[in-house]
């Protein structure tokens, strides 16, 4: 088990760069997000990008609706959030079936793999089930060397086949948050 790194003090991981490159290739333009430490490197790449627009949200469900509107206007996007935000999205996820638009979300997981904070566990435990009950296919990446393939598959089925897809980025991958040293 490795600890979650502080983004500013340690070397950047390779997998967020791989995700960014795939999103670029699929021409994702609007990137709504509720911040999470596990997404911090990717969010920074998006905010620095000239082709993507990072859009901070007040709650995750806003991102589902935003991506529906973006698609209506001809743009693709991706929603970045933490597992605790998935529950906030449930009713709005109806839009993925109603509009059949290319919905892709990347979810950093909490509440698993050595979690310290019990408040993260209930939603983290039901994240996959909530997506599946809502008609969203779930793919999971647990190890750094599988992120690229998982992400490529997710982007392909979401953008090419309008199959609503969530990628769960495991807490084992992003590192367990350390509260007490």
């Amino acid at each position, binding site marked *: 088990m490795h600890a979650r790194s502080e983004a500013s003090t340690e070397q950047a991981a390779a997998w967020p760069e791989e995700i960014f490159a795939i999103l670029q290739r699929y021409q994702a333009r609007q990137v709504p997000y509720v911040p999470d430490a596990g997404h911090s490197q990717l969010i920074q790449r998006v905010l620095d990008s000239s082709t993507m627009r990072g859009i901070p949200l*007040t709650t995750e469900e806003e991102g589902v609706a935003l991506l529906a*509107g973006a698609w209506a206007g001809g743009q693709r*996007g991706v929603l970045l959030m933490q597992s605790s935000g998935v529950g906030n999205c449930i009713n709005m996820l109806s839009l993925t079936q*109603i509009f059949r638009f290319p919905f892709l979300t990347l979810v950093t997981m909490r509440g698993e793999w050595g979690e310290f904070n019990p408040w993260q566990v209930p939603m983290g435990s039901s994240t996959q089930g909530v997506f599946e009950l809502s008609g969203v296919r779930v793919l999971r990446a647990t190890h750094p060397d599988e992120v690229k393939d998982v992400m490529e598959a997710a982007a392909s089925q979401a953008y090419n086949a309008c199959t609503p897809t969530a990628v769960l980025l495991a807490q084992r991958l992003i590192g367990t948050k350390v509260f007490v040293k």
Partner: protein
Amino acid sequence: MSKANLLDRRQVVSTLLADRKEALVVAGLGASTYDLAAAGDNPRNLYLWGAMGGAVMMGLGLALSQPDLPVVVVTGDGEMLMGMGSLATVGVQKPKNLSILVLDNEAYGETGGQMSHTAATADLVGVARACGIPDSKAISTLGEIESFAEAMQDTSSGPRFANVKIDAANLERVLSNRDGTYIMNRLRGALGHAPI
């Protein structure tokens, strides 16, 4: 339950869209969607029949992807209250081509007319302004709706927000299309986007 001197919602929306040109219109679920349908069907209409609280965000996604076209969101006070955070998100993005018009009857008309927070204490104009949309105002006359309709065509001066207190009478429903894929693909087609 009608009060004197309040505007008729159908007249407000038909006046707003009388000379809409290329405007894209998102209508919140319930009466706002019926108002949009009553004003005349158009491929550039995005009718919502659910997803309560999402109308402004759909308008934002649309506005950011089509920055040269006017985008207007027409929704009710209940729907706006549920998506109040989206005004803060709009305030940060500042899309110059986005206009938001709230039809405020101070009630949940679709479910029996239960009072909404705007009947008591909530001031949506104040909320919008405090969220970073300085061009936010209360509207009470059709003349102001005409001015708003003109302003919304200017895609370089938004975002703008207006709240209009309307008569709370429940009008006969005018049903729009409710097949989401049809509505979505028709709108995309009108903008030149092919199906996948």
